[in-house]
């Protein structure tokens, strides 16, 4: 069972920067499952969830991009009212701050991606609540 990792890539806010990243990943045959961009004025961070992090890192390194791997918790929730609420409440009750959160729905099931300060603690707490935390392999099967 492996933890889910996001690849976070530094990018200047310039035309063509995102294209350079996506082109590199495409050439390496890496499939992007999810993408988010956080930006400040002149620079930003592009976060991607990919099917295979290793070749993604390899091609980014070779092309001279700056990047880091971030651990993220991928939680399977019911695609129905209250699904997200259950997760957020649990975290709040245990005083765990969300750094970032986003989600996607595929095939009638929802995946919530969350970044927190202490991933290990959040993992323990959510597991106790019978919430299913996905592995890298499971996320890719969605």
């Amino acid at each position: 069972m492996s933890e889910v990792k996001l690849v976070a890539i530094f990018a200047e806010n310039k035309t063509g920067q995102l294209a350079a990243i996506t082109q590199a990943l495409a050439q390496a045959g890496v499939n992007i499952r999810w993408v988010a961009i956080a930006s400040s004025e002149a620079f930003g961070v592009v976060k991607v969830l990919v099917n295979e992090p290793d070749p993604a890192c390899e091609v980014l390194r070779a092309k001279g991009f700056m990047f880091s791997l971030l651990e993220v918790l991928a939680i399977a929730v019911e695609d129905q009212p209250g699904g997200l609420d259950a997760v957020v409440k649990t975290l709040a009750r245990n005083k765990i701050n969300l750094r970032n959160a986003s989600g996607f729905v595929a095939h009638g099931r929802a995946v919530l991606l969350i970044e927190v300060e202490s991933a290990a603690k959040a993992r323990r707490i959510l597991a106790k609540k019978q919430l299913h935390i996905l592995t890298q392999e499971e996320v890719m099967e969605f």
Partner: protein
Amino acid sequence: MFWDQEAETMGRGGLEQLQLRRLKATVRRVYERVPFYRQKFAEAGLQPRHITSLADARRLPLTTSADLREQYPRGLVAVDATELARLHTSSGTTGKPKGLFFSRKDVDRAAELMARCLVMAGLGPGGILQNMMTYGMFTGALVMHYGAEKVGLLVIPSGPGNSEKQLLLMQDFGTTAIHTTPSYALYFADYLEKKGIDPRRELSLRQGFIGAEPYSEETRRKIEQGLGIDVYNSYGLSEMNGPGVAFECAEKHGLHIWEDFFLVEIVDPRTGEPLPDGERGELVLTTLCREAMPILRYRTRDITSILPQPCPCGRTHRRLNRITGRTDDMLIVRGSNIYPQQIERVLMDIPAVGRNYVILLEGLDELTVTVELAGAGFGGQVEKLVRLQTEITDKLRAEIMVKPKVELVAAGTLPVSEGKARRVIDKRSL
């Protein structure tokens, strides 16, 4: 370890007597042979016999970089053409170059001083020096080359640039020391990191002679960490032979300047008046042994001060503090005087900052500092980067009294020059 222990540890009294004898000879020589100086003496109502003590040196005319350009090509030559052995030039950013001549003895003496510097840093036979400075009209590479051969080192005249070739030479021939600029040393450290090469384990480098551009103590540390070497601050200028004028000893605290060859003064850059030891001002040098082209009281434009205390290494030649800037480097931004080295010192002290930066001035006094991130410092969160940006802005503002705009870029994206780094771009329309 000494190259010339007698000369390097000579008592101050003897050294000053020697200086006076050599100063008098130099003054007579230029008075008799160089029309430029003869005229300057006449204007000042000065005769060689008026110089009877070292303190009288302040009565001698100052020589500026503009004088050297005006006397180009041969105006300052003090020997017959048949005695000339080498020509170097020093190119300015604008206008005519300076022609710099060496006699055979001058070439040998420059190498002699260089040899003192190399042995002072612990080099000797068996050492392998990769000389990464530009060979050619620039003095940097050749003067080092001759000195290194004198000491008995194996010299690899690699010249600058082409990191792949530099690395290959280091790997194949076991280079133990390098001679380069701080900007290229930083670039090369980055190159090794990208290649995944640990210089401590995979290379044999021990010493680096880093000079030709002023740099800060923080930059020294970054180079030492990045290349796994001891960095020795090296000072020279083409007008005074090139490298080998003043280098650090193992104490790494100030640069011994060879006072049997140079008369050293610190002057107020605005008035030209001499300042006492310990005060910061412009370094002024007089050659004491030069045959082909003696120069009196040359205004180096380099800002430093003299460390008067004796050095534990035993050398009696006084030390210069690290050069903190050049009088012509100074920027005036929104009424504040700023030296680029101040900005460098702040940046290189922040671990998340990488090895390269550019200072841009444009419009009406707008100051932008573009900073490369350190590869390892990128945490993948935009908030962290914004905090870093704020930290850099605040620290710079505290140091230079002007709030700059700070931009962050990825490691390895700013241009790197292979000669002297061009870190300041002034496009102001003032």
